[in-house]
């Protein structure tokens, strides 16, 4: 079945709700209106107000209510409309949900999911375009999932709902309309990267929209005789540095592409962890990130801000020729 990512998300929630009566879903404008990105249309009709409901604009109460219901028998799925609003919800996620299993001495788990729409490129401006993954990727006890394809979005969201840990599930706005095959939708553990294109000359790793950009760049680079291996991390925590290290052992070169700034980003951290493991095998490694500014609104500025396929190609060609020149 070919569906867009938006539908893959909706169907994942619906499928889990059908299978497990303890799954509930709530958020702002998600029930009757079906979400501002129309990613949850029809859920309220199918599952009724007790299981799918609209809430006040109270992000902190939402994450808190998710925590409280998750430790008492439910599997809440919460939508924080834009990832930018995650800062308002973070306290309960960090201090309650993420700590509970460990601090309670493993008395109980916290099976909750917080979904949010993230990322730039939609001309939404600085407060509706961020990716909050890096605010959260260092929090022990949390998982952070970030799919690039409808099939992964579907399977990983189902896995997230079944996961006994709190999971933050990032949905890139520019990927909602992207279509793909759902496939047979087997199980997929959270935290496994995937090699989405094989290549021997360098490894390009990214998540979400960046994976599509990397794939497009890889095609262009192939035209110049450079074969890039492209890895979709599919999430930020757990961070599958092993798959990346394995690839780098073969290619000798690593480029991590992040939609966000260098310092404090996942890309620099991944590069550091991979370097620690593969130093002797490395010919080069670097990060392509955004400038360290808020996301600009104006189309010319936003386009230049984003590390798209062209920027990746330029970066690879520049870096390779530099190393040849050296």
């Amino acid at each position, binding site marked *: 079945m070919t569906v867009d990512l938006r539908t893959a998300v909706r169907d994942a929630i619906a499928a889990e709700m059908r299978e497990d009566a303890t799954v509930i879903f709530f958020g702002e404008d998600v029930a009757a*209106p079906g979400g*501002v990105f129309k990613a949850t249309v029809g859920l309220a009709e199918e599952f009724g107000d007790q299981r799918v409901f*609209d809430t006040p*604009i*109270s992000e902190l109460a939402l994450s808190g209510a998710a925590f409280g219901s998750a430790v008492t028998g439910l599997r809440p799925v919460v939508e924080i409309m834009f990832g*930018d609003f995650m800062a*308002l919800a973070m306290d309960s996620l960090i201090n309650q949900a993420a700590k509970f299993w460990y601090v309670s001495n493993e008395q109980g788990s916290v099976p909750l999911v917080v979904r949010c729409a993230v990322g730039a490129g939609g001309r939404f401006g600085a*407060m509706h375009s961020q990716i909050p993954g890096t605010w959260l990727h260092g929090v022990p006890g949390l998982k952070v999932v970030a799919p690039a394809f409808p099939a992964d979005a579907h399977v990983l969201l189902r896995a997230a709902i079944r996961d006994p840990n709190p999971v933050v599930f990032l949905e890139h706005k520019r990927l909602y309309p992207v279509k793909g095959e759902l496939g047979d939708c087997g199980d997929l553990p959270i935290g496994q990267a995937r090699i989405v294109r094989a290549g021997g000359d360098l490894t390009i790793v990214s998540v979400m929209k960046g994976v599509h950009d990397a794939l497009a760049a890889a095609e262009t680079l192939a035209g110049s005789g450079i074969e890039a291996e492209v890895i979709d991390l599919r999430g930020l925590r757990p961070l599958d540095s092993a798959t990346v290290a394995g690839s780098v052992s073969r290619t000798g070169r690593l480029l991590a592409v992040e939609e966000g700034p260098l310092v404090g980003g996942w890309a620099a951290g991944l590069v550091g962890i991979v370097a620690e493991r593969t130093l002797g095998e490395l010919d080069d490694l670097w990060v392509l990130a955004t400038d360290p500014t808020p996301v600009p609104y*104006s189309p010319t500025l936003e386009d230049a801000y984003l590390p798209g396929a062209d920027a990746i190609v330029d970066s690879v060609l520049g870096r390779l020729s530099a190393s040849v020149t050296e």
Partner: protein
Amino acid sequence: MSAAELLDLHRRMVALRAFEDAVQRQFLRGEIHGTVHLYTGQEAVSVGVCCSLQPGDRVAATYRGHGAALAMGTDPRGLAAELMGRTSGVCGGRAGSMNVVDLAHGLIGCFGIVGGSIAAATGAAISLGRLGGVAVAFFGDGATNQAYFHECLNLARVRDLPVLFVCENNLYGEFTPMAAVTAGADIRARAAAYGITAERVDGNDVEAVREAAGAAIARARAGSGPEFLECLTYRHLGHSKTDPATYRPPGELEAWLERDPLMLSARRLVELGAELDAIKTAEQSVRDEIDAAVEAALADPYPAPEPGREYAP
């Protein structure tokens, strides 16, 4: 209020309306990007409040902030250019519709985060408590369920800060009716629970808004501490550009259109002896000015990216 005074307010409201009409056209033409949240129908609130402000006073508004900006004196061309992402935009095209800042006109920001305006104005009132002046926060009914509302109103009262909290209750937060998510039905009771004087006013009646807000601002200026004003109003259009507003019960919009703030003030002007023709002429000249300003913005260039530049003061 004299006819002349009311005509002045009427003209300002027409400017806001004309601006949003123009924005809508430019959005459909693809000149404005992402999304916009139009103020159409709520003009009496920001016009009725801001007309009592003085130089040095500060305003914080929301993503639905074109009205507040214009009411504070932001240049319509600069505002339109901002929405179009041009260098001549009041924020150089960096902010866009949701995050406009115009310090020169006392607008410390429009905030894309619901509730953010409340914090900004509360903080500004700490400064103004020392320097003199009043801060105003505009925010919606939906924002009264946000953390910022609670913590800031309490802080403002505890510190007796000179701030007017203006809740524009337009009955909806996005697609969700206020009543479905706002417990207790009466938002004034929340403010009153912090010991803040709380009034409700017809937010479509610019005279009533001016009177209530003017009195509250005067009290705050005189040292009364925070004040709260709920303005009952209605947005004529959907929440944002993608919203056809099908969630409204039939007849609701029509009933509110009968109470269109511009119609009410025009009617009142006639009562006060103004000629209908003169009103129409005035309206048209305002509309022409705004249209010209918005069209002019179209000629301005897009900013050139400066990759690698450092952006810090």
